[in-house]
């Protein structure tokens, strides 16, 4: 069975070019970058080369790139590192209600430690109002953290506007760019961010590696204590193959950003309009235009998301849902609830995220199969009493 993978926001396959670039660093150039002999220096050079590639992708300086074990660590590092380092200045953090769990749970933890957290609401499209950020600032505010684009509904936030507000107020500004770096233009100066999180496996790089961009001069307590790696900001022997892979992925991503974006937007909009036209009582979640080029999030009334995903999996289509039934906590997606969806609408949500290897035929296949699946499930739904199935 030909499988159709449409969950690129969860993880991407590692690009074969990236895998090739990584291979020498397992057995041949395996040295510890901290060692002074040639093996070590080869690894060190590769490390610095990768750092340069990542820096170029986001318009940063090389020394502002700190490699981490992934996006989650980068978020934890940013939140906790900024909170600890600025304790004397204040204890207030501003974030949004629809952040990734890596940010929200870090905030919750900091809340328990005595910090005050403001969770800004979003509008029905998932947008944070920059004015609400401005209004939330107090003389105790030490950090603002708003994601660049949301992983579930794809809404792209007005980051540069918030960046200006943060700069004026002299407050550190962090943005989780895990879904955007390598997918849409990300420039730390245009966005006006001081801290920015990235993840390797969301841009065709390997898992287990990420980046925290740290603007020169930002006060941040190290996340890991130990050796002096990453200029003393993140101890632990560097994951050289992973970092090389991330560097390669960053370079590849930068090469055809615009072309790939246009291609994906075409496929995305075809999928969205196809579903909404073919199937009654379906609605797009998130913003129609301020949206990641690869994100489709639809609520289907009267059916539950996990059962739709399972049915799709049976025929080889991989997609995800924000339904309570499929979350480990049995809670509906906090993002869908924050944009004002009723519990039952969140229940019937489906997310397709497209990528490099998504083809038009695949999108057409989904448009052919999904309405049938929905029809089958609606026929056995107690909620469709007065509705003809399908």
């Amino acid at each position: 069975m030909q499988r159709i993978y449409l969950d690129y926001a969860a993880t991407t396959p590692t690009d074969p070019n990236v895998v090739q670039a990584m291979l020498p660093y397992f057995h041949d150039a395996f040295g510890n970058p901290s060692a002074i002999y040639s093996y070590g220096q080869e690894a060190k050079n590769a490390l610095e080369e990768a750092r340069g590639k990542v820096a170029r992708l986001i318009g940063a300086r090389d020394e502002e790139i700190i490699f981490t074990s992934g996006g989650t660590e980068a978020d934890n590092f940013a939140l906790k590192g900024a909170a600890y380092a600025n304790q004397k200045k204040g204890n207030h953090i501003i974030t949004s209600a629809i952040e990734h769990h890596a940010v929200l749970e870090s905030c919750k933890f900091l809340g328990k430690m005595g910090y005050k957290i403001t969770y800004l609401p979003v509008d029905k499209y998932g947008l944070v109002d920059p004015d609400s950020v401005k209004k939330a600032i107090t003389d105790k505010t030490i950090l603002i953290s708003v994601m660049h684009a949301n992983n579930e509904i794809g809404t792209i936030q007005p980051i540069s506007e918030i960046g200006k507000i943060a700069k004026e107020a002299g407050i550190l500004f962090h943005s989780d760019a895990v879904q955007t770096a390598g997918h849409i233009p990300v420039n730390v100066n245009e966005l006006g961010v001081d801290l920015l999180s990235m993840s390797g496996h969301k841009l065709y790089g390997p898992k287990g590696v990420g980046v925290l961009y740290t603007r020169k001069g930002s006060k941040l307590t190290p996340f890991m204590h130990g050796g002096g790696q990453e200029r003393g900001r993140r101890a632990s022997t560097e994951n050289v193959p992973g970092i090389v892979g991330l560097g390669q992925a960053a370079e590849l991503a930068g090469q055809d950003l615009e072309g790939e974006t246009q291609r994906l937007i075409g496929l995305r909009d075809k999928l969205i309009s196809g579903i909404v036209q073919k199937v009654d009582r379906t609605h797009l979640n998130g913003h129609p235009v301020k949206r990641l080029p690869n994100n489709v999030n639809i609520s289907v009334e009267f059916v539950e998301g996990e059962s739709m995903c399972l049915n799709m999996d049976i025929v080889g289509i991989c997609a995800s849902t924000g339904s309570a039934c499929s979350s480990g906590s049995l809670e509906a997606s906090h993002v869908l609830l924050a944009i004002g969806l009723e519990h039952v609408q969140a229940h019937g949500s489906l997310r397709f995220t497209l990528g490099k290897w998504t083809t038009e035929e695949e999108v057409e296949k989904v448009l052919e199969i999904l309405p049938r699946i929905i029809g089958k499930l609606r026929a056995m739904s107690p909620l469709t009493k007065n509705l003809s199935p399908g």
Partner: protein
Amino acid sequence: MYSEKVMDHFNNPRNTGDMENPDGIGHVGNPVCGDIMELYIKVKDDIITDAKFKTFGCGAAIATSSMVTEMVKGKSLADALKISNKAVAEALGGLPAIKMHCSVLAEEALSSAIDDYLKKNPTRNTDALRKLHKTPHHEETE
């Protein structure tokens, strides 16, 4: 994550859809995740002769409703009331721990359908059956 049996009942659910003039209707909601299940039965001489269901819920919810309708057919009301969620889950080759609550929904839909029938058909048996019905026997975890 699901057993082959679960996937079979999920993919080809038995006894779905409406029933004409059911003798008992069970309607329950899942307090854990918010799902809804309806179960309809036909009863003759205290025997369940037919059962159908409609479910708005996850794979486990659909599979357990399908299984429970299969299990009750031909059973006396008293025996049907003895079917526990655990028995349904076992008949399906087990459920992931986090999905056991869905099988509770199936058990409750069944007893609510029988309850409905008993209310509409008070017989000499009713009191004993009611008592049986009141005894909770479902377990949430394996």
